[in-house]
């Protein structure tokens, strides 16, 4: 394939202007999604409210009763609660950037219209990801309020959790978007959830710590974004360690920035053949 200036599909050299989004147009894309959410939020928020509540009930209050001494001195339900803030953000981002984006793109064909306006693929991806992480933050805040209300947050630093959830949301969203931009058909999402999201939910340190397990378990977990967000939210909810938060924040930021170009290029190759 020859190099065509101004265009960057997969396997072609990308100019910076094909990667850097226009903030104004990304905001326009964001606002469409926000507007639709504002009409549907009542129905959409209730499950988010109930989901972590059930986990807390079953694991924190149920299973937790048998874990008499808590974990590292923290009562079990207080150990689990901050992780559920992080996982709510993950689930929200995962659904938004898979099924929702897929439908807007392939069923409703909304992106064909968007891309025939001044909006380019990088604006579209940036706006969608910004929206997805906004939604993740809203969900995270709902869960934060729930766990704080039942007395599972011991540190006032917890008030700083939302911006970190936004960052985690960006990272989860860019990963989900990457998957969506590369898959040919919708059936493949079951792999994304079964092999990616569900194991991440179970093995990222929400329900048990790694210090009694073989070292490789924590090494594997270190490569998942949820692990880093859980460490941040738990730190802030129980009493933070600034250095550790800095490292986890850096991890999420770098991964998000590195991955961003993949869905931009893939979407361009797919929608502007």
């Amino acid at each position, binding site marked *: 394939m020859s190099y065509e200036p101004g265009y960057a599909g997969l396997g072609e050299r990308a100019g910076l202007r094909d990667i850097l989004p226009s903030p104004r147009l990304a905001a326009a894309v964001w606002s469409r999604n926000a*507007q639709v959410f504002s009409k549907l939020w009542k129905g959409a928020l209730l499950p988010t409210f109930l989901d972590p509540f059930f986990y807390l009930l079953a694991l924190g209050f149920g299973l937790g009763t048998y874990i008499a001494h808590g974990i590292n001195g923290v009562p079990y339900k207080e150990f689990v609660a901050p992780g559920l803030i992080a996982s709510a953000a993950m689930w929200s981002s995962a659904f938004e950037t898979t099924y929702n984006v897929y439908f807007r793109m392939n069923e409703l*064909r909304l992106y064909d*219209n968007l891309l025939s306006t*001044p*909006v380019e693929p990088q604006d579209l991806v940036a706006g969608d990801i910004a929206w997805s992480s906004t939604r993740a933050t809203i969900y995270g805040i709902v869960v934060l309020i729930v766990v704080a209300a039942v007395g599972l947050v011991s540190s006032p630093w917890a008030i700083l959790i939302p911006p970190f959830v936004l960052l985690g949301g960006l990272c989860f969203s860019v990963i989900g978007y990457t998957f969506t931009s590369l898959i040919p058909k919708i059936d493949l999402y079951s792999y994304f959830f079964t092999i990616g999201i569900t194991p991440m939910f179970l093995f990222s340190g929400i329900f048990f710590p790694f210090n009694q397990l073989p070292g490789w378990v924590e090494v594997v977990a270190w490569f998942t974004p949820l692990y880093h967000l859980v460490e941040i939210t738990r730190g802030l909810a129980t009493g933070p360690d600034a250095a550790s938060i800095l490292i986890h924040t850096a991890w999420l930021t770098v991964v998000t920035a590195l991955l961003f170009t993949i869905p931009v290029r893939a979407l361009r190759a797919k929608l502007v053949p």
Partner: protein
Amino acid sequence: MEPAVLARELTKSYGDRVAVDAIDFEVPAGICFGFLGPNGAGKTTTMKMIYGLARVGRGELRVLGMDARRERRAIKSRIGVVSQETNLDGDLTVRENLTQQASYFGIDARAVAPRVDELLEFSLLHDRGSDRIQALSGGMKRRLMVARSMVNEPELVVLDEPTTGLDPQARLAVWRSLERLKRRGVTLLLTTHYMEEASRLCDRLLIMDEGRIVTEGAPPSLIHQHAGREALELDLGEGCDATALLATIAERADGHELHDGALTLFADDAEELLRSIDHDRFPTDSAVVRRATLEDVFLRLTGRTLREGE
């Protein structure tokens, strides 16, 4: 005046399939220019290259004087698009669809409301502003698509089969809105399967087949050039030898089409041609004299074989 669209040796391939094969054309500003052709002729691919949903393969394509490869954003900010598929946003109301579209063009928030009012008025949807898209008829959706393509006050509007699937009343309403658009001086570029639509709206036509341009011209001159003035349609009777009949009258006709015992002859005076036929030797079940149409031109140039979907 600079042409609205200029293509030189424009080529586009998808893998091994050549969709558009080194075509040259020029769309003058301010007119309605039509692309006709069977499915798979390359019309939609050409439109998509113009409005930025397909990359330019080889050759040159300039839209409003700008290079379609390098200046996509600038081009897209000055054109309007009505795609073949209706892709309105079903989660938003009619009015919100237009307001949202305006935001993609960076139109100043204060200017949007009056602009949207005007567009609703233009497309006869002023009492439908707060309806959901699902509540609109097919014709209303297409009119809204046309209205949406106008939010940025484009100099050129590209319409890919704007009336396919509409009933006659709805089609007429879309035509009227396109005629109003044309009167405002907007250049229209459209593809269609309907000869009536092409004759009614287009000042200039181009017929494509298999990625190439077959002919180009104003509708009346295309008819004159490729079909003559009138057509004589004969339904040949049993035992009528078409070859022998053609041998006796071929020189008096400007051409013919023979298809399953139906013979169409083109001539300046079809009545006279009919009289000159030896009806005892060549029995016919029916004979109709009519004016030659664009449909005759189209079928003569692109054949009668059915094409696979594009």
